[in-house]
Structure formats: C-alpha cells, structure tokens
C-alpha cells in the first residue's frame, strides 16, 4: 500500500516520534499554560464588574433592582463556534489526504479550513467592533480587559494558523508539492490548528455560557 510509505516512522529517534511532532506537542503543552494564565486572569476578575457595578456586563444582571442587559451575543457566537469546529473537521481531512497520498483532498480541505478560519475571524472582528460601539473597550472595566485579551490572543492564534495553512497550501501548489514529507508537514500544522480549536472549546462555555 502507498499508505505504508507515506507513514514511514521517523528514522533514528529514540522514542520513535518524529522530532518536529514532539516539538509541536511540547509547544502545545506550553500553550496550555499560556491560555491557562489568561483564563486565570479572567476567572480572578470574573465577578469584579458585578461587584463594582461598572458595565457593560457580559450577561444579564440585576444590580440594585435594575436589570442590565448582557453584551455577549450568544447566538452569533454559537455560529462562529460551529464554524471553528467544522474547520477542525476539514483539517482532519487535510491531514488524511496528505497521509494517504490524496493531494486534491488535502488541498481542498486546506482551502476549506482556511476559509472557515477566516470566517471565524470575521465573526470576531464583527463582535469586537460591535462591543466597542456599545461602549466596551479595553479600559472600560475588567470584563473588557480580560475579554479582549483572552479572545484577542485566541484570535491571534487563529490568524497565525491561517497564515500557516496558507503557506502550506501555497507550498503544496509547487511542482513537487510538499515533497515526501507532506504527511508530517500537514499533520503538524493540524496539531496546531486543533489546539486552537480546543482552546475555543474551553473559552466558549467559560466566557459565554456560564453565568
């Protein structure tokens, strides 16, 4: 089977894990701490806006008998969450295509992933712009600061991922594509992409759904 060749295990490593793959997983471990710290900041200040009564607020709250409407747009964000989830699915197929010597599947899936990533970023830009119009900025209150920092850094990661995938797609258009190593290249890009997705899997319920 052609598959066996494309899957050739890394040569000469003691663990049998390819160097770059090990590097990526270690890096993702580091990223856990990075987003962990950002989320910790968010959690530490979670109740501060309510305690101090300085809006805009993330969710509907009653303060001194007055109902303040939450600023978070859950339906829209659910849509963008779905988009990002689907991008993970298309990414899986890009890896699958690369590893099973099906370059067209790989390229189309990469393209789909890029497009979905861009759509997600579009949602985020829209959300940020709306919030700024409604008076939520970095300096309005700690919800603004923690929200923009956390989702902003997630968005930056998505952006970097999109650039990464575009480079990969461009490189795969060359005469000999991504070369013999295509499977590994795309797989490692995929690891990064999925990680960015799971960060959102955590952020979405934490920020948007929990009261």
């Amino acid at each position, binding site marked *: 089977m052609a598959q066996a060749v494309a899957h050739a295990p890394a040569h000469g490593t003691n663990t049998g894990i390819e160097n770059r793959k090990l590097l990526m997983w270690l890096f993702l471990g580091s990223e856990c701490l990075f987003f962990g710290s950002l989320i910790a900041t968010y959690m530490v200040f979670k109740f501060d806006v309510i305690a101090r009564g300085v809006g805009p607020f993330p969710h509907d709250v009653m303060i001194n008998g007055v109902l303040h409407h939450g600023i978070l747009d859950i339906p829209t964000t659910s849509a963008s969450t779905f988009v990002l989830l689907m991008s993970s699915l298309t990414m899986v197929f890009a890896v699958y295509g690369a590893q099973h010597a099906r370059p067209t599947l790989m390229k189309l899936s990469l393209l789909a992933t890029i497009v979905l990533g861009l759509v997600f970023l579009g949602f985020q830009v829209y959300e940020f712009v709306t919030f700024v119009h409604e008076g939520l900025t970095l300096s309005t209150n700690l919800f603004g*600061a923690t929200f923009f920092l956390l989702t902003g850094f997630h968005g930056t990661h998505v952006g970097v991922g999109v650039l990464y995938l575009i480079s990969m797609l461009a490189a795969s258009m060359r005469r000999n594509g991504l070369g013999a190593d295509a499977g590994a290249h795309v797989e490692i890009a995929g690891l990064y992409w999925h990680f960015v997705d799971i960060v959102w899997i955590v952020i979405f319920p934490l920020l948007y759904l929990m009261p």
Partner: protein
Amino acid sequence: MATAAGTLAHHAESGVWSWLTTVDHKRIGVLYGITAFSFFIWGGVQALLIRTQLAVPNGEVIPATLYNQLFTMHALTMIFLAVMPLGASFSNFLTPLMIGARDVAFPRLNALSFWVFAGGAVILTSSFFFEAPGAGWFNYVPLAGRTYSPGQGIDFYVIGLTVLGLSSLMAALNFAVTIMNMRAPGMTMMRLPVFIWMVLIISFLLILALPPLTVALIELLFDRNYGTNFFNPAEGGDPILWQHLFWIFGHPEVYVLILPAMGIVSEVLPVFSRKPLFGYSAIVFAGMAIAFLGWAVWSHHMFTTGMGAVPRTIFAANTMLIAVPTGVKIFNWLGTMYGGSLRFNTAMSFSVAFIALFTIGGISGVMHASPPVDTQQQDTYFIIAHLHYVLVGGAVTGIFSGIFYWFPKMTGRLLDERLGMTQFWLWFIGVNMTFFPMHYLGLVGMPRRIYTYDNDLGWGFWNMFETVGAFVIAASVLLFVINFFRTMQQEPTASDNPWDAPTLEWATSSPPPEHDFDVIPVVRARDPLWYNRDHNIQAEQPTGEHIHLPPPSYYPLLLAVGVSVLAVGPISHIAFTALGAVIAVYGIWGWALEPTE
C-alpha cells in the same frame, strides 16, 4: 583529523561571517559562553557600584534613582543575561556530545535562540542609554505601572524579558526533543549523564514556567500603554495578581538557575573522586522531585502580602518539603566523596565548595519557609544572603567548576592550575566575606533595596566588610579573565580525555571535530568510557560513511533581527513593528524554503 573520518561537507571554518551563520551547537555554545561571561562582568561591576555606595552609612557615591536602577539591572543582568545563558552555554556545547549525537534536533532553531537572546540582551541593556528599569527585578505593580513609573524604563523591562523568554522557550523545546530523541544507541534514559538529566528537567521547567510570565508581562504592557486596569486597584484590578503570575514563573526559574550547577557537580565529583556517582537514580529522581515540588511553592515570596492562614500553611509545607530531595542530592554527593581518592584541582575544589556554599543558602531558604519567621526576614539582607549563597555560592561556583573541567574539551587547552587555585581561594573567601555577614545584617534589621542607612543602626562595620569582600570576588574573577587569555595564547595540547573521565564527550578529540564523532559511539553502561576501559573495548572504527551536517544559515540571525525590531515597536514607533514584521516574515519564508541537504 576530522576529514579523514567521513566525507564531510565543508563549511567556512573561520571569520566573522562563519560565526554569524553557524548552526554548530559547539560554536553556539561558545557564543553563549562569551556573551554571558561578559554580562557576568557587567553585572558584577554594577554589584561593585552597589557595594561601594553601601560601604559606609549615609554613603554619597550613587544617587537614589541610579541606585534603584542598579540593583534592578544587576539582578536582571545576572539572572537573565549571565547565569541562565552560562547554563545554556554548557547545555549547547555538551548535550549532543554527552548523548552521542552529531548536533541538536533543530540546529537552525538553536542558532535562532542564541540570536534572539542577543537581541533581548541588547534591548534590556540599552535601557541605560534611555532610562533603566528601577522597580526591582520582580517589578511589583503599582510601582511599575504608568502612574508611578512614568518613564520608559519598565517598558524596556517588559519588552526585554518577553524577547528573552521567547529565546529560552525555543531553546528549551529544542533541548527537550534532542535529549528524548537523539541519544546514541544504548544510551537509555537511566544511563544519561546527570548533567543531561538536569538539562532535560530545566527544559520542561522553562516550557511550562515562561507562559505565566509572558502573560504577566503582556498584561503590564497593556496596563501601561493601552489603558487596561489589570493591576490598578482604583479600577478593580489587583496588584497581587502580578505577584502570583511572576512567582509562578519565578520559583521554577530559580531551579532553572541552580540545576545546571547541580548537573556539573554531579559530573565533576565522580571524576576527581575516582569512583562512580553515589546513588545515580536517587539524584535523578531528586532532581525531578525538586522540579515537581517547585510548582507548588511560589507564594513563599508573598507570605507578607496578607494571604490567609490556610494558603500560608500549604505553601510553607510544600516549600519545606523541597529540603528533602535537595538533601538527598547533597548527601549523595558526599557519598560520592566517601571512600574516594580525591584530587583537589580547581574544578574539584569549586565542586566541593559548591556543596558547602549551596547548603548554606538552602538552609537559610528553609528558615524563611516558615511564614511567621519570614515576616522578620522578608525583604531584609537575610534574603539577600540566601539568594546569593544559592546563586553565587551555588550556581556560579558550579559554573566555574564546569569551566575548569570542560575547558580542555572546548578549547584543547588546560587552564593554568596555579592561577586557578588562587582564583578559587579568593572566590571562596570573597563569597563568604561578602555574603555571610548579610545573614547577620538581615537579622539586625537591615532592609534590602536601600541606597542609604543611618549611622546609629549599627550596620556600618559589616557593610564595609562586605564591600571589601566584593572586591576580593572581583580580584578572583579578574584572575580568571587573565588565566583565560593566557591559556588561549598557548598551543592546544590537551589530550582527548585529560581527566580520565567516563562520559562520551571525552571519547572524541579536544576540541571535537565539527561532526562531533567520527563514529557514533555505542553505550554499554552508565559510565561508558570507564566501562570500555575496564572491559578493554576499543572504540569503533570509522566506516567512511558520508556524514551529513546542516549547512550554515543566515536566516536565524535575520529572523532574530526581525523579532527584536518588531518587539521595540511599543517603546519606540509602530513603524519598527511593521519593519520587524516584514523582516521576520521574509526570514521565516527563507528559512522554510532553504534546502538543508
């Protein structure tokens, strides 16, 4: 010679350009070493200025603001630009040699780490031309916020540390992969030299500890420049959050500083005791236990911030527990000396001194691990005594031991022993003269970070004494510098294994050829060369097989320039960010497309 062994692709051997584009781990190690030692002297000069100001009560040598910048930059220089990269110098030079590999897993990434480090060092140090940071090395807010530090100093701190952190992260990832994946046949994990174990542990510590610092730095950057209020109590922020995030990084960081020295000592002691390391596995597991526990103690730097009784108790207990694995190491080193035949040359003397000096620092650490006791010791010279005993008496002493031990391997020359022993005694006396009285001064109430003190507090004598001690240390360091230059002028005469040492780096020539080993050695035991010696096993013969080495590349340098220029945007003009980004993107593309065959 090197070329006889394999058909080696040739690269430029000398000249500035060859150093700028090198991806050879040994050369990168040398670059780290020379840069870091220069910064050690620079940090030492700052320390001498500090000591001069404190020599007498109401000293008037250095004004308050400059003094505050000096101790801040002294600590930053010593920690981030001297001791950490000195550790990196050893791990770069030695890791592939000691595990029997031809290079690290990602040679270009390795070069990038160095150049990004150089960029960060330039950024941080250049602050002296504008305004140096002056809020202490742990940079507590709100003092470090825009309101109370309106100048640019703190921005240099933030940018400099972020860039340096990036460099360390890349290096740590690289070394973790190298050690896990690139070992010679037979080099199982439990045969790894202890030094390599320590490098691996440090790599994990850095990979996991740097992100919280980065997040703290980003939040401070935003607070200072983009209007957020993470640390501003007036708007609901909390200065304590900075302390937590900083020390979540900061405590693992101190183990990053000490573990290389512990690794060095574990290599040197057996060689000059002429017997195997006592309790190898205990030492390795103790190293892991230290690294593991090191995550659960950070708040011991915050015992006086008004934490509740429960967290204080928990953090105190965890902190004290670290004495247990560390004690295991100390006693195993003593066990290594026990029954040996100790040859007290310079390398060995520094290693034995390490045991004594580090223990003193460790014990004082356990003393202020008790929160009630710490309320009397925190922010006094007792802490300064502790930190210098572990850092100077520990880390730097260990590093000197390593320099004397591996110098023949690195340069083919043996450092002069007479100068070496004189340096050692000056060092040992100077360190104790400078830092031991600090315990006493702390206990009689001298706070740290004061540029002046009154005559009638009874601190004058010992401060003068310490200042004299600091100059004794300087004399010692000066002797080393002289020794270095004198030795380098001589012909390389060192044999492959002048110490009859057991580890793989001594199986190749001194200095090693560019490809490290003519034939990758096979490892049969924990002390491979001793095993081979005792079992009369000859080294494998070269096969003439083609040895592939990665070609030099200027992309790491270019990319590092891009990153550094990009980073100074927030403290200069946004145009720099744009320019840096362009350079960086170009660098990445060139890097990705550059053939490595």
